[in-house]
């Protein structure tokens, strides 16, 4: 088994901030917009370095999405920053018409996604955003797993022409992917090679999947672990190649099981190679207040839940 080392816990939103700071130096057409959450989104450096390219829109997310769409006309590459809830559900129609249908080159960057937002509770813990965004034609949907990958993804999406939804989170989590990695949109990353079960994880659940694979390994089960940072377009080839080898799959995400990664993988399998699948995700429920760890435990989104699902799905082969 490959060993993955946590180089020190960091939040993925800081990876976004660092990527944006980098883009400020390298991409003169990158502009940033924020709806009164500059500090939470870690956009302070970009704002300080490029005040003329930073737009504080206040608590008015619908207007922010429209302004972002307009900024593309004239060649700007707008990055919007607010919480995932306010980046998607609150402004769905603005994104649908002014950005997606109009095919505008806007990067919708969303922090505090999912349960790990923690104590603020369900009003802010969106678990439906991946579904909302992946249903929009032409929208690329990315959910990164750690600081380094979020920084790399932030930089990569600036060079991709078209609307992108980039989802990341609030808490400090393990930082284990390589520094200064190249990030290829739509290309899954193979983390472990195994023959007994495939684990496909996205976002904060990738580290949990690696921990689950270690536990499984101790029990004599070899898991193929895939980091599927891009949910749309989905790397079908990587998924099909893996399940051909293992014959069963667990998907893991910090999202509702309706509309998330699990359903996207299930579609690929149903159409190409029907395979037993277990879905580690929330079960059509809202979240609640609590610490991130407590919530992930209560809603079954951790290494233990992935391990249990893997052992179960293997019996269904």
């Amino acid at each position, binding site marked *: 088994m490959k060993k993955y080392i946590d180089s020190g816990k960091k939040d993925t939103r800081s990876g976004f901030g660092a990527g944006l700071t980098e883009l400020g130096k390298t991409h003169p057409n990158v*502009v940033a917009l924020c709806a009164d959450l500059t500090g939470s989104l870690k956009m302070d450096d970009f704002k300080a370095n490029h005040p*003329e*390219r930073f*737009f504080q*829109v*206040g608590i*008015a997310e*619908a*207007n*922010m*999405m*429209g*302004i*972002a*769409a*307009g*900024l*593309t*006309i*004239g*060649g*700007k590459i*707008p990055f919007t920053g607010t919480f995932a809830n306010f980046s998607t559900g609150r402004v769905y*129609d*603005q994104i*649908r*018409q*002014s950005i997606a*249908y*109009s*095919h*505008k080159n806007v990067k919708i960057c969303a922090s505090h996604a999912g349960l790990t937002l923690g104590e603020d509770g369900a009003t802010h813990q969106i678990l439906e955003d991946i579904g909302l965004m992946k249903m929009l034609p032409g929208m690329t949907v990315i959910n990164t797993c750690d600081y380094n990958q979020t920084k790399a993804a932030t930089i990569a999406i600036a060079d991709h022409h078209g609307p992108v939804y980039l989802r990341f989170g609030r808490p400090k989590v393990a930082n284990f992917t390589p520094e200064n990695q190249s990030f290829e949109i739509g290309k899954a990353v193979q983390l472990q090679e195994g023959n007994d079960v495939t684990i496909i994880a996205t976002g904060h659940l990738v580290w949990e999947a690696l921990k689950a694979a270690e536990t499984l390994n101790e029990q004599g089960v070899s898991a193929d672990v895939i980091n599927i940072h891009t949910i749309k377009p989905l790397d079908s080839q990587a998924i099909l190649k893996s399940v051909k080898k293992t014959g069963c799959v667990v998907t893991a995400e910090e999202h509702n099981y309706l509309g998330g990664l699990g359903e996207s993988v299930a579609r690929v399998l149903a159409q190409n190679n029907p395979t037993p699948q277990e879905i580690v995700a929330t079960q059509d429920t809202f979240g609640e207040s609590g610490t991130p760890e407590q919530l992930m435990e209560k809603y079954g989104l951790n290494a233990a839940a992935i391990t249990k699902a893997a052992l179960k799905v293997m019996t269904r082969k």
Partner: protein
Amino acid sequence: MPDMQHLNDLVIQVRRDILRQVHKVNSGHPGGSLGCTEFFVALFQELMDRKEGFNMDGKGEDIFFLSNGHISPVFYSVLARSGYFPVEELNTFRLLNSRLQGHPTTHEGLPGIRIASGSLGQGISVAIGAAHSKKLNNDSHLVYTLCGDGELQEGQNWEAIMYAAGNKVDNLIVTVDYNGQQIDGSTDNVLPLGNLKGKFEAFGWDVMEIEQGNNLEAIMNRMKTAKSKTGNGKPVCVLLHTVMGHGVDFMMHTHDWHGKAPNDEQLEIALSQNPVTLGDY
């Protein structure tokens, strides 16, 4: 000096285009389209500094966004007759595989369209973004947008109106089609807009009214004044008093023709009130 005879002929011809487009497919929105005909002709023929051809980025030229996308028939007719695409294409309005969708879209690549609109309330925000982009590009040209008065019931507009004043977006002219009508009735009956001029002014805009919104010369004169107000630290709002359905007697002063096409007989009467000038498509 503008050729007023030609422009007046064009107004009549655009009215014929609007009526014939919606009649052919028995759908679409003639009322607001007819009411804004003079404004569109003035804007595209006289007021905007436009480049030949179409480039999405619109650098070095004035650009326009239609927020109330349902009045696409007037937009399409004036775009076609301003050289953006062949006038014959007006024949395809709302048909399958057409670039002239029910509501305007960039999706089919129709020259002249820079944003999809139809779901209301989004145009001012988009125009603000484009205005920011122009300033960042050191482009001194203007951004125009038109929205409906009923459309101002959408909350996003007021986010945008607050933002534009607060951020001194002064290369922007927002025109409101102030016809007092919407689908369900008069704006006063559906949801009163109150003192619109006072509201824009309270938000920090420079507001002008054009009382004769269906008079070509009045529009041209007053809009030139509006242009002269740009660049002074305030966004500019023009309240354009129009008559929905203008130019067809039985369609005027009512909301009935907001989204209804004339039948064969009604079309004949409507066209007889607007006899051919430049030639039908």
